[in-house]
C-alpha cells in the first residue's frame, strides 16, 4: 500500500541546510499496522508529511497504492502531532468531523451516519455539539481520530498522537486504535518516540536512527494478534522485543 524508496529530505534555508532524512526505504502492506519509532528530532514528522504529500521531498519517491505522491492522496487521512491545533475552533465537534465529508460530496444521510458512527466509536456522542476548546486534550485527540475514521481512508497516518495525554487516557486510546484498525481494515502508519507503545501496537516496528536518519531495524512483532494492556505487556516475548530494540539503540549510541 505504501512504498517509500530512498526517501531523502533536506530543509534548505538561505543560511543553512538541515538533513532531516538521509535515506529511507521500506514498504507497508495493505491492512498492516506499522509503527515507526525514533528519538525526537530524527525526522518522524518529516517522514509523515512527505508520505502525506504535504512536503516536497529532496530525493527518492513515495507511492501510495502504486501511485507516486505529488500532493495529498485522496484516500489518506492524517492525525497530526498538534491535534489541538488541527481542529477548527469555530466549528463544533460534529461540524469538524463532517466538513471533509461534505467536501467529498458524501450524500447527507450517509454523512450523518458516518459522523454518528465515528463519534460513537471514539465515545464522544455526547460531545458532538461542543466546541473543541471545551474538551480535554484526550477528547480533542479522539475528535481528530473520529474525523480521520469518518473520512473512510485506505491509509491512516498518525504522528505521535498520544505524546501529550496522561497514561490512563493513553492506554485507552491505544486500544481504541487497535479496535478501529481491526474493524476497518485500514492501513496504519503510526509514529511514536515510545518504544513500548510501538511494540504494543505494531505488527512491525521500524526503528529510526537519530539524525542523519536511516532505518536501524525493521522488526516483525510476533505477539498474539489479540492485544491487551495487561497480558500483552507482561508476556516474556514483549520484554524480549522491547529489550532488543533498546539494545540496538544503545549500541548505535555507543558506536558513535
Amino acid at each position, binding site marked *: 500500500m505504501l512504498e517509500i524508496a530512498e526517501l531523502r529530505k533536506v530543509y534548505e534555508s538561505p543560511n543553512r541546510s538541515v538533513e532531516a532524512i538521509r535515506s529511507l526505504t521500506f514498504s507497508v502492506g495493505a491492512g498492516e499496522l506499522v509503527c515507526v519509532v525514533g528519538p525526537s528530532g530524527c525526522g518522524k514528522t518529516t517522514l509523515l508529511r512527505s508520505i502525506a504529500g*504535504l512536503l516536497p521531498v529532496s530525493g527518492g519517491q513515495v507511492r501510495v497504492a502504486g501511485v507516486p505522491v505529488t500532493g*495529498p492522496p485522496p484516500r489518506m487521512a492524517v492525525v497530526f502531532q498538534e491535534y489541538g*491545533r*488541527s481542529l477548527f*475552533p*469555530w466549528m463544533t465537534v460534529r461540524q469538524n468531523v463532517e*466538513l471533509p465529508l461534505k*467536501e467529498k460530496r458524501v450524500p447527507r444521510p450517509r454523512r450523518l451516519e458516518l459522523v454518528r458512527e465515528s463519534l460513537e466509536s471514539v465515545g464522544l456522542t455526547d460531545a458532538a455539539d461542543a466546541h473543541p*476548546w471545551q474538551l480535554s486534550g484526550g477528547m480533542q485527540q479522539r475528535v481528530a481520530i473520529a474525523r480521520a475514521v469518518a473520512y473512510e481512508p485506505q491509509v491512516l497516518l498518525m504522528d505521535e498522537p498520544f505524546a501529550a495525554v496522561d497514561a490512563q487516557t493513553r492506554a485507552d486510546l491505544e486500544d481504541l486504535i487497535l479496535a478501529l484498525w481491526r474493524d476497518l481494515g485500514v492501513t496504519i502508519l503510526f509514529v511514536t518516540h515510545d518504544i513500548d507503545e510501538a511494540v504494543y501496537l505494531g505488527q512491525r516496528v521500524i526503528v529510526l536512527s537519530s539524525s542523519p536518519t536511516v532505518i536501524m531495524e525493521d522488526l516483525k512483532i510476533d505477539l498474539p494478534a489479540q492485544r491487551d494492556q495487561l497480558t500483552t505487556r507482561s508476556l516474556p516475548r514483549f520484554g524480549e522485543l522491547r529489550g532488543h530494540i533498546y539494545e540496538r539503540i544503545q549500541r548505535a549510541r555507543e558506536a558513535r
Partner: protein
Amino acid sequence: MKAGVRGKAGVRVVRLFGLPVLLVLGWWLVSGRSFYLPDPVRVARAFGQTWFSARVFDDVLPSIGRLLAGYALATVLGVGLGVPIGLSPRLRATLEPVLEFFRAIPPPVLVPLLMLLAGIDTPMKVLVIVSGCVWPILLNTVEGVRALDEVLADTCRMYGVHGATRLRRFVLRGASPQIMAGLRQALSIGIILMVISEMFASSSGLGFTIVLFQRQFQIAEMWSGILLLGLIGLTLSLLFRFVERRVLSWYYGAGAARA
C-alpha cells in the same frame, strides 16, 4: 438573598449612569458663564427642536447612509484585496511598503483631490469615507490571513477542503478576529470622515449643519449637533459590539478556555 440581587442591580445602575449624571451636573455648574457654553436644558430643548424635524431626512439620515455605504464599500475592498495579499507571500512583499505609505496619508487631505476627481456630491463624500476606512480593514485582513494556523491549512489540504469552502470555512473564519479589529478601527475613522467630508463645499449633512450653526451663532443648536454625533457614534459602536460578540463567540470562548 432578594435584597442582595436588588443591591447588585443597584450597583450596576450606578455604574452605568453614575458618570454621565455627574458630567451633566458638572456641565450645569460651569454653563451660563459663557455665551458659548449654554446650560443642559437649553441644549436639550434645542436638540428636540433641531433634530426631531425634517432635518432627520434632509441631513441626519443621508449622512448615516453615506457613512454606511462608504463603510460597506471599504469592507468589500479591504477584505477582497486583503485575502489574496495575505495568502501570497510574493504579493505581500511587493505591496506592503506601498500600503503602509497610503495608510500613512491622513484621509482629510484627500478631500480637495477627491473634489476635483469626483465633484462635491455624494460620490466624493462616500469616497472620502472609503479612502480612510479601507486601510485598517485591508492591513488587518492581510495580517489575519497571513497568521492563519498552518496545521489547519495542512488539515484542509489533507481532507480536500479547497476553493470556496476553504475560503469561507477556514480563511475568513480564521482571520475574523483580526478582520473585526480592523472593522472596529474603520468605524471610528468613518464617523470622523463623514463629518469632515461634509464640512467642505457642502449644503447638507450633519457636519455641514453643525458648521452652519456655528457660523450663525446658534450655539445651543451647535452643541445639540455634537451631542447627536456622539449618540450616533455610541449606537454604532454598541451595534458593532453586538455583531462582534456573535461572530467571534468561539474566539472569546477559546480564549477563556486557554486562560
